[in-house]
């Protein structure tokens, strides 16, 4: 038994990355960022607002949270809808009460099916991030580029039409891209994406599109749904992260705490009190700058 000799050849073994998407850079060695009013931690909430067809597709891959039982999967179809009808409005009320503006990564299907939800988001001063078509709109290198281009441009067009403003940001389902995605986003006029989790501050791809890292480890999906921890533990983890980042900011400049939220997870009745308390605790911390993705992008651009 032996392996193909090519398996022991390393043509890209050299300084920097084995790809040309963006340059290597160490966060600590960059020029420090300063957030408005001397704030230390940009606290960025991103709510994913998604519509799951009851007819799931598994190509290129099946989205996290999608249908699981044999057809028709009423339990998951309706439980996801619960997030949009009920949980999301609990979150909108909590944001209003705390006077916090957030980003909402919405499927185009939300705009088509429930345009009033999009208007409620925009009227409240929140930002819309384009988040593909619906939860069958996954992207990977196995998707033909023409289909990916169509998926991206159509999603943006539908959301722009209903929101009355063109989304500046893009978030892929499950953060999964193809090797073509960043160039297709550039082509579609997108200024930033939040898919790559390799950093804790914005950085630019070689084509100019900025990535604002939306830490998946700090998401309600990861902590509550995947790791099965309580909402209280989730809240404590956010505060522990905030404390650590605040201390780092004193030495290294502005830091970022991305909080990725899912209405059908965090928006349940028994979790909402813990979340509202967390919002209050974050607001009470002096260094907190509640920001939308577009606010962080503008700060990053103006300081580069």
């Amino acid at each position: 038994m032996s392996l193909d000799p090519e398996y022991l050849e390393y043509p890209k073994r050299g300084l920097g990355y084995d790809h040309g998407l963006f340059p290597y850079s160490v966060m600590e060695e960059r020029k420090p960022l300063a957030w408005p009013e001397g704030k230390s931690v940009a606290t960025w909430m991103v709510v994913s607002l998604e519509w799951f067809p009851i007819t799931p597709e598994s190509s290129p891959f099946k989205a996290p949270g999608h249908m699981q039982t044999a057809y028709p999967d009423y339990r998951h179809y309706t439980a996801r809808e619960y997030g949009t009808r009920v949980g999301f409005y609990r979150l909108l009320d909590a944001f209003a009460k705390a006077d916090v503006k957030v980003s909402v990564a919405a499927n185009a299907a939300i705009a088509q099916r429930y345009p009033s939800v999009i208007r409620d988001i925009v009227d409240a001063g929140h930002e819309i991030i384009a988040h593909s078509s619906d939860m069958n709109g996954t992207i990977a290198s196995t998707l033909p580029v023409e289909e990916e281009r169509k998926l991206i441009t159509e999603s943006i067009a539908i959301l722009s039409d209903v929101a009355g403003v063109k989304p500046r940001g893009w978030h892929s389902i499950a953060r999964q891209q193809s090797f073509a995605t960043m160039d297709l986003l550039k082509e579609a006029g997108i200024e930033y994406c939040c898919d790559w989790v390799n950093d804790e501050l914005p950085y630019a791809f070689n084509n100019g599109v900025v990535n604002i890292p939306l830490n998946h480890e700090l998401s309600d999906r990861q902590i509550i749904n995947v790791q099965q921890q309580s909402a209280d533990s989730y809240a404590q983890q956010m505060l522990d992260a905030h404390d650590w980042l605040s201390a780092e900011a004193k030495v290294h400049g502005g830091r970022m705490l991305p909080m990725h939220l899912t209405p059908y997870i965090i928006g349940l009745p028994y979790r909402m009190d813990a979340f509202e308390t967390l919002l209050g605790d974050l607001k009470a911390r002096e260094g907190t700058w509640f920001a939308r993705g577009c606010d962080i992008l503008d700060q990053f651009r103006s300081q580069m």
Partner: protein
Amino acid sequence: MNEGEKDPGLYDFAPYRGRKPFVWPGDKKVAVWISPNLEFYEIDPPANPHRKSWAMPHPDVVRQSHRDHANRVSHWRMAEVMSKHGFPGSVSLSVALCQHHPNVVEDANQRGWEFFSHGIYNTRYSYGMDEAQERAIIEDSIKTVRDATGQTIRGWLAPALTHTPRTLDLIAEYGLDYTCDLYHDDQPQRVKTKTGDLISMPYSLEVNDHYGFFVYNMSPREYADTLIRQYERLAAEPSGTVMCIPLHSYLIGQPHRIGPFEDVLKHIAADAGHGGRAWITRSGDIADAWRAIHTKEA
């Protein structure tokens, strides 16, 4: 190993009960070593017929960029906390990191950390290699680490824990003296190889941060509590135990985890002074101390 046999013949059975206690240097009861994995994961590696690299079609954005977080952000966060409390690292190294990001390797070397090999990349697996191929990655590892750091590697943790039936014999033949791939004991033990003198260095999957967070789904504070319990138990048992804390900075160095982890280091460091129980050290030093004690006895 005894290839194809039911018992791989790696070591003799030696029950924990009845072993003669011994002390580590400084009259310490438990040797504590931290093993940060310094890795490079290729974005588009070739396929190994026996194991898939990434779950998604390349690029597997989340999994690959999560690991890249180590080399942009979290290595320094983790390393600073370790240095602050007097913990050196014994690095499980994807040796190609010496070419891709020599700054990370240099940082670890300047902190006085030891290096052992974790293969060329953590996306190239040993499964299916013939002997010449496996010799090539061992020789590559020795040369690459020597050129980059001046150190001669003494240990091996197979890339992504992928082995062949020859691995242990080969690393022993090349003069490596410890393996981190065997999990049968809380003390170093002799390993049977054709030639050389190989011992098993207690590593740990159970308290590895990857297991803590993704197998046992612990919260950061639960993981910290687990490490403290592991330490307290090993320090309380008959003297001569080893506790390893295997880490990945892209996990332990996340902002919600590093604070609770720092509390663990404070706890152990507080028991390392005069009259304390902890010998905070490196894997190679543990191998030397164990051999000095057990060669004398033999």
